[in-house]
């Protein structure tokens, strides 16, 4: 470990980035050395993706400096970063599915012979050379869409190498890979190291970190907690660094739920392969039922099944102990189940329409007589919610597109509160909104529970789940891997989440 002698290939100093209401990155320093595999870990919202996006120019930094190869750099776009030798492999791949492996790999660096024709021979030769050197075994003439996810990931890595990239950032690369595929990826990563390519490896999964990384940098709440040598720490120490001191500001005064009550929602053995594999639970009126787990653990898919947005393959849903058939969102609404989806812009709101039209959409029948709309009544209801949830807007006719994320979320909540649901499912309700709005949402959630609604609070941010939930379910790979009561520590849940994975 005498890497310190060498010059770092990437050096970041005092990097800062704020979004409205949030300090996303706070004075981050980071050094990555040649031939190093460096892991970047932290909870959701810790600032990992923001950091990557700043490095490659998706976002522009507020202040601080980035040196790459001893040169001060300031990329405008990932394309520019790629040209200078930094490549990012995202969770979703960015290949062109209709082109073959070799066409994708050489896209943008084709060799030409006169008349603009592509020098297929030379390209093929080069392809074979590099594949051999690094132990890739990809079929060069197969179309990328016919490859598995893992192979596609390898194609992306190969593409980076052909472009003589010296530094590869991998953002949760194993998220959708099987065990064998992960092994293959790890072999390639160690080959990269011996070919003088550095890797910044972003992940949730600590087992992987301890297998492949030499050093670990931990982020929490936009701050760098520490950079440590993998050999000098153990798993629990890293978890503690990730979650920090458990926050003590409780939202729950007393847990009144469940005492002598019938479950309002009961699901038995819900399945839709591959993401949901036999989930059963009961949720009671007046409680906040938290569901957490990693990205890809099947949380969103589970909520969509209960709401009828996707077709159920197996299992049973009971409302007030009576089995119900939910084959569409309409059926769910009739049974007074509501879902505030994760992607509010895509699934919850009609951005080009006014506030009141969004809020009354699911309950429009109540706002019409003989099909004719009672617009005055719509305005009154909208004003009521603007006041009740403190929505910052210029008025009922404000177009939703122009509201901030937090206020848009409140519109999505209002829309469903108007239907007076018995069960309100919220999928990542605080995603992408600022700290103040988050706290407001927690308060809304608690008040709803107090008024007798069963709120199913789904989030991958463990810190908020433990704060607002009466009971907590942990999902891993579409199965329940743990169930906890209010008062459980964040570490305990993180332990369950990370242990169960792979």
């Amino acid at each position: 470990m005498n890497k310190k002698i060498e010059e770092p290939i990437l050096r970041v100093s005092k990097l800062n980035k704020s979004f409205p209401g949030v300090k996303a990155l706070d004075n981050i320093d980071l050094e990555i050395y040649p031939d190093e595999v460096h892991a970047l870990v932290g909870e959701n919202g810790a600032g990992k993706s923001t950091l990557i996006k700043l490095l490659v120019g998706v976002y522009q930094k507020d202040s601080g400096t980035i040196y790459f190869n001893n040169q001060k750099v300031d990329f405008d776009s990932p394309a520019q970063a790629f040209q200078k030798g930094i490549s990012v492999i995202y969770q979703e791949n960015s290949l062109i599915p209709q082109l073959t492996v070799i066409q994708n790999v050489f896209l943008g660096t084709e060799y030409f012979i006169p008349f603009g024709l592509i020098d297929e021979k030379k390209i093929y030769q080069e392809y074979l050379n590099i594949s051999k050197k690094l132990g890739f075994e990809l079929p060069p003439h197969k179309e990328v869409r016919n490859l598995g996810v893992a192979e596609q990931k390898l194609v992306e890595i190969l593409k980076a190498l052909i472009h003589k990239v010296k530094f590869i950032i991998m953002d949760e690369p194993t998220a959708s890979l099987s065990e064998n595929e992960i092994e293959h990826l790890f072999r390639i990563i160690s080959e990269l190291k011996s070919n003088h390519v550095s890797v910044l490896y972003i992940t949730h999964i600590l087992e992987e970190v301890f297998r492949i990384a030499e050093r670990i940098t931990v982020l929490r709440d936009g701050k760098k907690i520490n950079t440590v040598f993998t050999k000098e720490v153990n798993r629990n120490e890293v978890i503690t660094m990730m979650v920090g001191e458990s926050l003590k500001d409780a939202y729950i005064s007393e847990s009144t739920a469940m005492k002598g009550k019938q479950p309002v929602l009961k699901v038995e053995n819900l399945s839709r392969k591959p993401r949901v594999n036999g989930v059963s639970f009961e949720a009671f009126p007046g409680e906040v039922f938290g569901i957490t787990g990693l990205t890809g653990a099947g949380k969103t898919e589970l909520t969509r099944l209960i709401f009828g947005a996707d077709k159920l393959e197996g299992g049973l849903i009971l409302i007030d102990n009576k089995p119900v058939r939910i084959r569409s969102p309409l059926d769910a609404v009739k049974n007074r189940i509501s879902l505030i989806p994760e992607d509010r812009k895509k699934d919850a709101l009609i951005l080009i329409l006014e506030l009141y039209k969004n809020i009354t959409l699911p309950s429009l029948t109540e706002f019409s007589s003989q099909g004719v709309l009672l617009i005055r009544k719509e305005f009154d209801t909208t004003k009521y919610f603007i006041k009740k949830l403190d929505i910052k807007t210029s008025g009922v006719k404000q177009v939703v597109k122009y509201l901030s994320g937090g206020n848009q979320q409140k519109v999505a909540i209002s829309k469903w509160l108007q239907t007076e649901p018995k069960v309100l499912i919220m999928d990542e309700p605080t995603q992408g909104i600022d700290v103040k709005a988050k706290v407001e949402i927690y308060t809304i959630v608690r008040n709803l529970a107090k008024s007798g609604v069963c709120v199913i609070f789904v989030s991958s941010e463990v810190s908020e789940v433990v704060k607002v939930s009466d009971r907590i379910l942990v999902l891993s790979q579409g199965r329940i891997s743990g169930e906890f009561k209010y008062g459980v520590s964040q570490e305990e849940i993180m332990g369950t989440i990370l242990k169960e994975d792979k």
Partner: protein
Amino acid sequence: MNKKINLDLAWYSIKKNGILFVFILLCIFLSIITPGFLSWANILNILRQSSIIGIMAIGTTFVIIGAGFDISVGSLLALTAAMCVGLQQYIHWGFAILLVLIVGALVGMLNGFLAAKIHIPAIIATLGTMTIVRGLVYLYTGGYPLYVDSPSFAFIGNGYLGLIPFPVIVLIVMVIFWQFILIRTRFGRYTCALGGNKEAVRLSGVKVDFYHILTFVVGGLMAAMAGVVYASRLLSVTPLAGQGYELDAIASTVIGGTSVSGGEGSVVRTLVGVLLLNIIANVFNLLGIHIYVQYVIKGAIILSAVGFDTYSKFRR
């Protein structure tokens, strides 16, 4: 921040009503350069010429607000007009009208079914039905023009109520009726909403496919009504009738500021779009400008109107 929002709102209202300003300015300008323009006879002439496309474009507006597209309405006009004429050999024209309105609605339903349920892109689905329906027109007419001689039927296209031509009255009543449906009924609201974001409407527990199909039914129904007026106005229908009408209806709709990506639009502004195109044609005729030049200008107007909408969306 507030200033930004105000600017956005100002931009929004210009975008929404810009076409009206353009329309009024153009009328003032034209009445100065062409003396005959503001005469009662000329105004009625323009309105009457606008009636057939205008009625058809009401349906087109609904389809486009619902983020659909319908290029079959020109053929459908021909089929319904031909049937309306042909059926009068056997039944009273009143029943013939009723029948062709049903045919129009059914073809619309088929279009909607293909787009909403089979998920064929609307422009391709209606390209298919356009071709089929045109074929049916040839089969029905045998390739020859059909004639009818019925003074009472001729009233619809040629009569006057007081000073106003009857087709103009049909147009105005329909515009008022469908504008009301669009902004004051549940169907109208759902139309805008599903054009804006169909998945979000589905996840709000609305029978989206049903309402999506219904927008196409309105499209077919209004094409059939335009067919009736057409048949009555000319009292004859050739197999080539209505060719290109769908394009004029779409052009009027988008010139009227209906967003090509769906969600926003207005029947009244579509009427302004129809009038605008007809006024320009009218003035060019008064000035003796060749029809070929008119095509070029019309194309340029369509591009500017749609370009304004799409570019301002892209700009953000």
